[in-house]
Structure formats: structure tokens, C-alpha cells
């Protein structure tokens, strides 16, 4: 019940939010101008830009890449020297260079894969200042690219005046990014942070208190006699961690930690925050494209896939963990889960966090039953069921382009989308995007598994391969969750993941921008009877099929070597026990 209520609330809140986002990004006057326009004016002055000047796809892409480079270098340096910088009351030491590089790139790419343990290895400055900033800015940058792609689909902002073949105005990158942070992320995050603080998420700059535990003088020498309760400005970070499809938590076990996610209500708030903006973007796309039918189809396709996966994961976790067979009562898999959430809310979170490229967790994915493990990695491989902010909908449009192309071939018409033809150049670029995930993920998995000295996995057998595959999938999908048993703070893991992170972030955002820029310049063919409609059931089913077939083709063998094989292994173990 609580699962359905959370999903319904997320959808109900995303709807008006989508309308608000349409308003602030449409370029027309909006009521929020009264509050934000003067602040933005000041910021644009500091940036030295004319915010009303549009950019073509090239300028937009360059601005996106350069601003990322600058931010990345600054973040790397601040992390590298955190031990000599202020706001470090617990006296935390320096990071190794490869760990600092991995951490900077991981947060820059909106991934938040963590090879460090937050509370123990990062200072308040690193977490509260560097990482929180990246958690605000990187989803805004992703959203900006998504906005440019959407404008490209409609022929650019200057569609009325420009001639065929002329460069189109896809918006101003800096205006989009600043607006997304100021008008969207900041107000939402402030509200969520206060709500979470009311539930018990720490919110303080004081050093962590140490308390003596209640039971003293036990025979066991291992039993702690005192506990240090790690605090900090946690609520502020957790809010944007959830809202910005970031996922990098304050504490090691993320939102499984009761300080980061203290109550079931806090859990409901964090779960809704996880999918809120990704769902709202679908509504926004409908508004900006003026294609409500297309948005409804998108919502139906994503919703169908999402709910199907949620159902499968919940069913999976309600089954007993095979290792407990005969050793405890027959009940759901509670290994790596918290009592206050139980199996259902943990499975819901695991599904949504991998679909949205968020990557925060409220239960340990390494200990999930195999079907739920399959669901989580499928969410990351598809990476377009809601998806990360901006990049998720861009990935979805890539699938739409491919589906349009295939459908066009089947009915023997030149494939077109919103009246613009997909031709050889665009298809070649799409080809790159098609091959990229499997090429990157499988290559790195193969190398790492082949050399046991660098693997560092903690579980034997097929699950060991699954751990490695999961880590690279999570990096490529910019998700950030992990099978955390992996010993991943090594130079090999840090550096190889940096490469995968960069490939997984920038190519899937920049290539669609190029395609959109090229499409925008084309002549618009008027709508006719022969036009392939993108808003009906037929196209929705085609799209689902295309999404599934593409991913099966790329990853079915690796799934057999991972969760599917593990499931079979477990059935045979259970058989032996009887």
C-alpha cells in the first residue's frame, strides 16, 4: 500500500512541477521572474554574458564541455587539499590522487559513485561545499543539454525566421543552467532538507559527539564501550542528493543509515524526491514541444517499464534469501535491509534509484536476491526509464529516434520525427550511441575479471562477475550505486572507472545534441496521412520492443553469466539442502 501511495504522490507532484518547468524554460514571461530575474541579472553580469543571445549546437556543446572542465579541475584541487583547508573539525587526512580524481569526476558526471567512505574520509568542506555544489550544478547542466535537444527537435528558437540549412538557436547554455539551479533545484532542495531535518537527519556544523554506551563491562572484548555519532550538515546534502539524481550520500551505506534516512516518512520523502524531477521532465517536454500526445506516450512507456520492474523487485525480495533456508522462519530477504523499511520499500527504492540514474540506496544491493539484482542492472542499462535529470530524457529520445528509424524501414518511408528527416549522418551518430554501452562496459568487465589481482571482488562465483559488471554499468550509466562488497578504492578501479564515467556522461549527451542540431536545420515536412504518429499505442509498443531488444542483444550473455546464472546456482543449492 505504501508503495502505491508513494508512486501516486510522486506522479501527482511531478505534474504541476512539469508545468512550472515548462514556464521557466519556455523563454516567455513567467511569474517567477519577479523573484529571480534580478538575481539572475547579477549572475549573468559576473559571468560576462548576454543571456538572451542564443547558441547553436556547437557553441552550446562547447560551453557545456568547458564549464564541466573548469568545475572538475576546481573540485579535484579542493578534494586533493582538504586536509589543509578549513572546515575539518574531525581532522580528516588527505585523499590519494587517484581517489580524489575518481571522486571529482564521479560527482562532476552526476554519478556519485563513491570509492571512499563519506563520514570517515571527507571533511565538512569536501562534503558540504564541493560535493553539494556539484550535486546542484551537474543535474542542471544535464537538463540544459536536454532543453537544447528539445529545442532542436522543434527547429530551434529561431525556427520562424531561419532558412533551411541555417544554424539554429538552441538557447543559451548559461541561462538554462543558472535558471535550473536557482528556480528549480534550490527551492525544492531547501524544502526537502527541512522536511528531512524534522524527521531526524542531522543538520549541524558541530563536531561529532562521543557517548558511552549503555551496557558496559561485557565479557566480549570486541564490544564497544563508547560510540562516536557522526554528524554534520547532512540534511542539506541528502535533499539535493535525492532530488538531483545524484545519489552520493553523507554516510557509507547511504540512506540505509538511520542518520541519513531515520523514519519511514523520511524514506517516503526521499523516494519521491528520487523520481520527482525525472518524471516532471516528461511533462515539461510535452509542454515545450507542444506535443502532449508524445508526452503521454512517453509517460506510458516509462511508467509501464517502471511499474513492471518495481513489481518484479518487490516479489523477488519477498522471497527468502537462499542462504537462510532452514535456518530461520520463511520470510522475505532482510540481509542488508533495515527493519523500519522492510522488503517492499527497499525493493521500490532499489528499482527507482537504478532507473533514474540516482544510485542512492536504502538497502545493500549486493545482498539482493537475483531477480531484484537483475532489475537493478536492467534499469541502469536501459537508463531511460525516467533516467537521470536531462540525460534520461535525452537517452529516451535516442531510443525514439532508433524506433522511428526502424519503424520507417518497416513501412518503407523515410524516417522522420516532428517533420524532420533522419538521414545518413544522424543514423551514423546513433550507431555510435548504440554500440557504446556494450563496448565500454563489456570490455572493462572482461579485462578486470581476466586479471584476478585487480578484481577485488568479495563474493565468489558468478556473483563475483556480477559485482564487476555492476560497477562498470553503474559508472557508465552515471548511476553510482554499487555492489558495495567490491574493494574498489584501488588505482585500477579508480582510473578505469574515471574513463568509463567520462565516456558514459559526455558522449550520450553531446552526440544527441549534435543530432538535434543537424535535424533542426532541415526543412520541416508538413504533417500528412503518411506521417508516422508518435502518440499512439502502436508506436508505444514498438518503442518498448526496441528498447528491450537492443538491450537484450547487447547484454543477454552477460546477464546469464551474472544474476540469471546465480539464480540457477541458488536453486541447485536449495535442492542440495533438502
Amino acid at each position, binding site marked *: 500500500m505504501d508503495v502505491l501511495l508513494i508512486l501516486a504522490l510522486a506522479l501527482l507532484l511531478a505534474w504541476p512541477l512539469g508545468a512550472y518547468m515548462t514556464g521557466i524554460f519556455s523563454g516567455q514571461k513567467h511569474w517567477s521572474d519577479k523573484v529571480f530575474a534580478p538575481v539572475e541579472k547579477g549572475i549573468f553580469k559576473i559571468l560576462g554574458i548576454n543571456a538572451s543571445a542564443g547558441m547553436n549546437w556547437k557553441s552550446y556543446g*562547447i560551453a557545456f564541455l568547458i564549464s564541466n572542465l573548469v568545475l572538475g579541475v576546481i573540485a579535484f584541487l579542493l578534494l586533493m587539499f582538504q586536509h589543509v583547508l578549513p572546515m575539518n573539525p574531525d581532522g580528516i587526512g588527505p585523499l590519494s590522487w587517484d581517489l580524489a580524481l575518481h571522486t571529482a569526476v564521479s560527482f562532476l558526471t552526476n554519478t556519485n559513485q563513491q570509492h571512499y567512505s563519506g563520514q570517515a574520509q571527507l571533511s565538512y568542506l569536501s562534503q558540504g561545499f564541493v560535493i553539494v*555544489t556539484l550535486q546542484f550544478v551537474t543535474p542542471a547542466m544535464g537538463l540544459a543539454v536536454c532543453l537544447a535537444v528539445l529545442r532542436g527537435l522543434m527547429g530551434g528558437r529561431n525556427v520562424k525566421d531561419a532558412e533551411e540549412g541555417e544554424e539554429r538557436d538552441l538557447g543559451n547554455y548559461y541561462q538554462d543552467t543558472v535558471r535550473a539551479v536557482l528556480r528549480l533545484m534550490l527551492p525544492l532542495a531547501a524544502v526537502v532538507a527541512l522536511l528531512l531535518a524534522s524527521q531526524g537527519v542531522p543538520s549541524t556544523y558541530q563536531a561529532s559527539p562521543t557517548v558511552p554506551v549503555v551496557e558496559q563491562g561485557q565479557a566480549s572484548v570486541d564490544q564497544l564501550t563508547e*560510540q562516536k555519532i557522526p554528524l554534520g550538515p547532512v540534511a*542539506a546534502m541528502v535533499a539535493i542528493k535525492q532530488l538531483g539524481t545524484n545519489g552520493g550520500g553523507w554516510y557509507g551505506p547511504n540512506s540505509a543509515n538511520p542518520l541519513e534516512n531515520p523514519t519511514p516518512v523520511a524514506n517516503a520523502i526521499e523516494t519521491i524526491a528520487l523520481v520527482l524531477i525525472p518524471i516532471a521532465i516528461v511533462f515539461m517536454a510535452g509542454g515545450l514541444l507542444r506535443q502532449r500526445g508524445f508526452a503521454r506516450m512517453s509517460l506510458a512507456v516509462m511508467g509501464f517499464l517502471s511499474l513492471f520492474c518495481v513489481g518484479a523487485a518487490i516479489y523477488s525480495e519477498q522471497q527468502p534469501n537462499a542462504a*537462510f533456508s532452514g535456518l530461520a522462519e520463511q520470510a522475505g530477504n532482510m540481509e542488508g535491509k533495515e527493519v523500519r523499511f522492510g522488503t517492499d520499500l527497499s525493493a521500490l527504492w532499489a528499482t527507482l534509484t537504478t532507473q533514474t540514474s540516482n544510485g542512492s540506496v536504502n538497502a545493500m544491493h549486493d545482498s539482493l536476491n537475483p531477480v531484484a539484482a537483475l532489475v537493478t542492472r536492467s534499469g541502469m542499462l536501459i537508463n531511460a526509464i525516467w533516467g537521470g535529470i536531462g540525460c534520461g530524457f535525452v537517452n529516451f529520445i535516442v531510443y525514439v529516434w532508433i524506433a522511428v528509424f526502424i519503424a520507417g524501414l518497416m513501412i518503407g518511408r523515410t524516417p522522420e520525427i516532428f517533420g524532420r528527416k533522419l538521414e545518413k549522418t544522424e543514423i551514423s551518430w546513433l550507431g555510435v550511441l548504440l554500440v557504446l554501452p556494450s563496448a565500454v562496459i563489456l570490455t572493462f568487465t572482461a579485462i578486470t575479471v581476466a586479471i584476478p589481482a585487480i578484481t577485488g571482488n568479495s563474493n565468489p562465483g558468478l556473483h563475483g562477475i556480477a559485482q564487476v559488471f555492476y560497477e562498470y554499468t553503474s559508472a557508465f550509466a552515471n548511476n553510482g550505486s554499487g555492489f558495495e562488497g567490491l574493494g574498489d578504492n584501488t588505482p585500477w578501479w579508480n582510473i578505469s572507472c574515471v574513463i568509463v564515467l567520462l565516456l558514459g556522461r559526455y558522449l550520450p549527451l553531446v552526440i544527441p545534441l549534435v543530432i538535434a542540431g543537424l535535424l533542426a536545420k532541415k526543412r520541416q515536412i508538413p504533417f500528412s496521412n503518411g506521417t508516422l504518429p508518435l502518440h499512439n499505442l502502436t508506436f508505444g509498443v514498438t518503442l518498448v520492443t526496441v528498447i528491450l531488444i537492443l538491450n537484450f542483444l547487447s547484454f543477454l550473455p552477460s546477464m546469464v553469466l551474472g544474476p540469471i546464472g546465480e539464480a540457477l546456482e541458488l536453486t541447485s543449492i536449495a535442492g542440495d539442502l533438502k
Partner: protein
Amino acid sequence: MNTDLISRSGISRAVSDSALSSQHAIWRPALGLAAVMLVTCGLVYSASVTGLAGLLFPQQASGSLVIVDGKAVGSALVAQPFSGDMYFHGRPSSVNTDPMSTGGSNLAPSNPALRDRVAAESAVLTERYQLPATELPVDLLASSGSGVDPHISPEAAALQLKRVAAARGIPTEVLGKLVEQHTEAPQWGIFGQPRVNVLLLNLAVDQQFLVK
């Protein structure tokens, strides 16, 4: 080209590469953006939200510390280790209930190490409570995700009731009442699972049945 476009289209919105032709125009907004965002998000947002939360919810914002006789004895959100017969026990922790190094076991269902661990713990509990293994609540055998899960299920508390009552020499029914008082229903009647906070329960037991 720039002026061309403007004059032809009659709009002031110029689309060209020229705005970005100079090095200056590429780097300055990027640097500016980084600086502005570090200040607004990293400083202004973090500090104002953290400060406001501290003002509005001082108890929750500072770690939900439990104060007994003017001294902090723990956090209501963080499990403490309990192993003696006088106390209710929490869930197994793979981090020795150390809040500074929280985490789960990360053992896969297929990992023999998990089966071995559960088998050992199951043997201890069947011996202690004189019950068949298949009646042991799962949450007392499964390690939590955080390693400091403050709660156990009401079934897990019920299982331990007799042991604690015997060790303290008090009637089971009296202690049972206290456990009932400390059983939390799903929050707002719908969210989450019924549960018992082990630290708060044990503190209440200590307070009501002074045995020191």
C-alpha cells in the same frame, strides 16, 4: 554574418559562433559559473538550510541524542551493542555497531560465507531460546544494511521477552506491557513496518526496574 542575420530576420537574437570566438568569452562564463555556484550552493544554501533546520528542530538536527540525568547516553537513531541477558539484543551488525564505519555485510545469497554466518548464529539462538530454527525471526539473523539499525521487529522482541524478564526477576507480563508501549506502528498508519527501538526499550527497562 552576425549583422546579416539580424537584419534579415529582423530579430535581435543572434545565432553565431562569433560570441565564442575569443578565448576570453569561452573561459570567463565557465569560471564565473563555478564561482557563483560554489558560493550559492556550497555556502549560502548549505549554511542557511543547516542553520534554519538547527533553529526549527534543534533536537533532531543534532543527532537525536538521548539524554538521561543530563548526560547523553546515545542516539535514538543509532543501535548500541547489547549482549547480556539483562537487555534486549539488536540485529547482527557487520561493523560491530560502530557508527563511524557503518555498512552491511555485502554478502550475496550465493556466498557460502553468508550461509556459514547465519548457520552459526541460528545455532546460538535455537540453543538460547529453545526453539526450532524455522521459528526464528529473520531480522535477528540477517545483518542490517547500516550495521546500526536501531530497530528489531515486534516478533524479535517477543522472542527475547522471557529471557530478559528472567534475568531481571520481573514478571513477563509487566515487561510485556513495556515492550508493547515501545512498539511503533507504521508511521502515520501507513508508511514502513511495525518496529521496536532497542536502545529506547532497554533504557526504559533500566529506568523502571532499577537493577544496577
